[in-house]
């Protein structure tokens, strides 16, 4: 068994554990993306639906392990990588089935909406300094690398396997040296753009009785976005510095440590979001059930919000009924493909 397969097996397990708990990290009046009574989640019917979802989800996780094992035996990379993909698709289907089972218990969501008349503007936590910090980090590294250009090896690795072994090399050009910094810049910019969209184009609290909960949930999500920006800034800065520091094929900081550090920062800021999600009395989110396709994709052309709270998973998602959403999707694709082209 190679180090790659061990890492992949751990990934499948972590994804399964995440999917196991994901349906619970939502408002108290939502169950599998359906509006229900506030106490429904404590009923035997709710527990049965959750149990059935978990059985289906873990069965798919098992199938992902089989695929992984076959991939190792036959040395078929597509089988190897297909495990987590199959697992994610399986969890989405299991969730949609859970939603169908919950529908008979649906309650008509209240048509009452409330909005504060305060015009006070909201900002990302930490202010401009916190927003600029990751870019400053990347810019400092770029300046350092260009000042020390001759100190960089003429050829160095630019890609590593999960076990940290170099598998692709490049000559010393601005693309290979600045590529990780540019990729980092795009990823952080996209993340922060999502943060701004939450601030500017998501409801501050449509239901009067849960306005306080919504405000805290929003704040915790925005703090997580800012923190992830810092973590990603540090990660890409270290990657860009690697040729200068390592002078060989090895990574100065092992992959597992980089991933663990990023995950630790994310988890540290994710935990308050999850804790808030667990609080009773958080009600519903003021979006119509019928606009949630498969319980996960929000499509409501009558809702001017661009971002709304997710009904499966933590955080916010896009309202695909809003034309501006396609601009966001285009930005996302750009972030994925521009680094590939470089």
């Amino acid at each position, binding site marked *: 068994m190679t180090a790659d397969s061990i890492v992949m097996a751990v990934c499948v397990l972590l994804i399964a554990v995440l999917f196991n708990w994901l349906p619970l990290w939502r408002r108290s009046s939502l169950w599998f993306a359906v509006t229900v009574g506030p106490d429904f989640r404590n009923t035997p019917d709710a527990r049965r639906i959750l149990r059935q979802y978990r059985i289906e989800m873990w069965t798919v996780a098992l199938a992902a392990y089989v695929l992984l094992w076959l991939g190792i035996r036959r040395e078929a990379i597509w089988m190897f990588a297909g495990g987590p993909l199959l697992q994610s698709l399986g969890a989405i289907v299991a969730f949609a089935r859970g939603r169908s089972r919950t529908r008979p218990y649906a309650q008509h969501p209240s*048509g*009452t*909406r*409330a*909005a*504060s*008349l*305060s*015009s006070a503007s909201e900002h990302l936590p930490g202010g401009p300094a916190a927003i600029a910090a990751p870019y400053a980090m990347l810019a400092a590294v770029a300046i350092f690398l260009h000042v020390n250009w001759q100190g960089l090896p003429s050829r160095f690795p630019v890609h590593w396997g999960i076990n940290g072994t170099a598998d692709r090399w490049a000559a010393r050009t601005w693309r290979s040296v600045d590529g990780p910094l540019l990729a980092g810049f795009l990823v952080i910019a996209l993340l922060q753009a999502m943060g701004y969209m939450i601030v500017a*184009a*998501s*409801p*501050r*609290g*449509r239901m*009067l009785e849960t306005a306080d909960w919504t405000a805290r949930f929003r704040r915790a999500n925005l703090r997580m976005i800012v923190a992830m920006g810092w973590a990603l800034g540090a990660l890409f800065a270290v990657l860009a510095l690697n040729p200068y520091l390592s002078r060989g094929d090895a990574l100065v900081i092992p992959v597992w440590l980089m991933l663990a550090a990023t995950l630790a920062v994310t988890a540290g800021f994710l935990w308050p979001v999850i804790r808030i999600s667990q609080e009773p009395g958080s009600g519903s989110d*003021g*979006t119509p059930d019928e606009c949630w396709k498969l319980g996960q994709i929000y499509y409501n052309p*009558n*809702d*001017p*919000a661009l971002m709304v709270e997710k009904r499966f998973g933590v955080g916010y998602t896009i309202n695909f009924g809003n034309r501006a959403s396609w601009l966001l999707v285009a930005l996302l694709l750009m972030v994925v493909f521009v680094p590939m082209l470089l």
Partner: protein
Amino acid sequence: MTQAAQIRIDLDSAAPVTRQIVDQLRALLVEGEVAPDDVLPSVRRLAIDLGVHFNTVADAYRTLAEEGWLEISQGRGVRVRQRPAPRHDKESLEETLAVFRRRLRQLVAEMRAQGLSPAVVARELASLVEAVKS
């Protein structure tokens, strides 16, 4: 503006949302909950918070601007104006009061139709009268 000032609408109500926003905002303006020079949320912000179309909120703000309560300016948002009470001559006063009486009668009939006793309706109206006096 008081911290608690807010708009509440009912999407299931037969009354149009624009009308609900206008009526509530006007009540807040008359009662002083929202004072002159206060800045209201932008059309976009209020529409997103309430989950209604931008035009619905824009129409409500426009109606109140025409009544002289609000000043809508590009870039500076929606500001509450100092509005002098309109003066009435005898004829227009009678006309206004006739409209007011008709609406009040309709409202009382609606309350009775919903099963509220005359005593309860009278008590509510009396408390309203007291609030107006104070």
